[in-house]
């Protein structure tokens, strides 16, 4: 029946494209999580009234985050072509999409991390200080665990955005479902291929959302 409804879909290349999309998403989500958490922590810690209060560093990071958050992704990919070439020696393929994906998503996630950290009760940080905790202890044992539900729901939203970004990256040659839908579906007017690629992307998004919600609910003991 599937073959009747989707006569032009080549299942092996559809499968391959799905794997490419999952690969790009997974790697970029992991890197975004780490990079975004670091940037978010820096934004939080250097803000007014916090442990590393420093207006200059705060402004610099804030400006960096705002700039990269504001550039439309499709333009960011183009702008980063020289950087990607320098880094990987090519601008084609899944790996070539990664720098743009990470640089596009990490600042976005950093803001979410910052918001999550701001929601932590100041009193809890003060309590840890009063016990003689070092800054590293406060980060690892207070800030990160106490904001973990916000960090996880934030990375869920970011991961879904990244699935969309991979499709866009696909259009300029990064592979994956976006690439397939564009080349095989749109340019050859085979709508069934485009629709199938869309369905698979939707399934990926639903699964990410489900896993994210599940983990957030498990972590949240409030």
């Amino acid at each position, binding site marked *: 029946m599937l073959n009747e409804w989707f006569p032009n879909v080549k299942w092996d290349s559809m499968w391959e494209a799905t794997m490419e999309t999952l690969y790009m998403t997974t790697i970029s989500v992991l890197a975004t999580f780490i990079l975004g958490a670091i940037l978010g922590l820096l934004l939080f810690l250097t803000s007014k009234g916090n442990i590393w209060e420093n207006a200059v560093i705060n402004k610099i990071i804030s400006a960096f985050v705002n700039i990269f958050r504001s550039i439309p992704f499709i333009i960011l990919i183009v702008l980063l072509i020289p950087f990607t070439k320098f880094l990987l020696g090519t601008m084609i393929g899944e790996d070539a999409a990664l720098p743009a994906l990470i640089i596009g998503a990490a600042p976005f996630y950093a803001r979410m991390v910052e918001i999550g950290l701001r929601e932590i*009760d100041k009193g809890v940080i*003060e309590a840890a200080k009063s*016990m*003689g905790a070092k800054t590293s202890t406060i980060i690892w*044992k207070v800030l990160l665990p106490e904001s973990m539900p916000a960090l996880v729901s934030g990375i869920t939203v970011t991961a879904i955005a990244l699935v969309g970004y991979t499709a866009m990256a696909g259009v300029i040659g990064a592979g994956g479902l976006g690439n397939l839908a564009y080349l095989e579906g749109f340019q050859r007017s085979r709508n069934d291929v485009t629709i199938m690629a869309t369905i698979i992307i939707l399934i990926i998004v639903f699964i990410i959302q489900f896993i994210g919600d599940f983990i957030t609910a498990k972590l949240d*003991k*409030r």
Partner: protein
Amino acid sequence: MISIKDVKKIYSSKKGQVKAVDEVNLEIKEGEIFGVIGYSGAGKSTLIRMLNGLELPTQGSVTVAGNEVSKIKGSKLRKARQEISMIFQHFNLLWSRTVRENIAFPLEIAGVSRQERLKRVDELIKLVGLEGREDAYPSQLSGGQKQRVGIARALANNPKVLLCDEATSALDPQTTDSILELLVDINERLGLTIVLITHEMHVIRKICHRVAVMEGGKIVEIGPVLDVFKNPKAAITKRFVQQVTEPEETKETIDHLVDLYPHGKVVQLGFVGESAEQPLITNLIRNFQVTVNILQGKISQTQNGSYGTLFIHIDGEAEEVAKAIEFIHSQQVGVEVISNA
């Protein structure tokens, strides 16, 4: 144990300078329960935060358990803080950790091994009476239980000083009493020095040995709790003392009673210490030809004795009434004749 010398804390804002703490000098002895009372904005919060270096004085020095907290920094300060614990009005527990893990947190900070941590946490849970709740999360506990976790956590590293920042202000009266009893118990058993700040005279009355009254960043009155109750000097102290010794609406009630008894005298008696425990009224009726009618009264226990007020109406021959009042005077009981009918 604690010595505060010429301490000033000035906050500068756009509107000008605010003196949160102004020229405060204070000595607190080892094993003492010392209370600081004042309305919000009196500077008591800033003062207690200077004792563990969460706030630094603009001027002056703060020494706690041999460490000049206002001067030391870095790892020395962190080490010192392990000996100066603090409990908070809103408990400040980590919601992501269970009761056991919350109490273990300061032990992790101090670098205690896992095995010893578990042992110590079990002791502490027993000490504060939380057996059976070890694996609960803070959100599953009542306010009183949360503060017990806070206290257990504060005691984990065997501190020398316990700072209580409005520790009972978010609790209902009954829970407040049980937490206060726990603090007295800890003070007696472990010989811990306790400094607490509050706006409730009830708390001071119940557990403190000495009290300082703060207003506008200054200490306006200081002394043993019973002395302050007996003889409050500053106007603000009188108001705080009234919170405890006089039942609410006393003034209205007494005015009403004065109207009600046109003859004889309405007298307010103030008892302090031992005199509160003598059968004064019995002696009065046995020895004088007067009738005594008890109108209203209250006796409160403090850590160094009891303190009470009693309103009575004495009626009879004017001469006998005068003699009776003379007798009360001789019994070292404060007498104040409210009105002549």
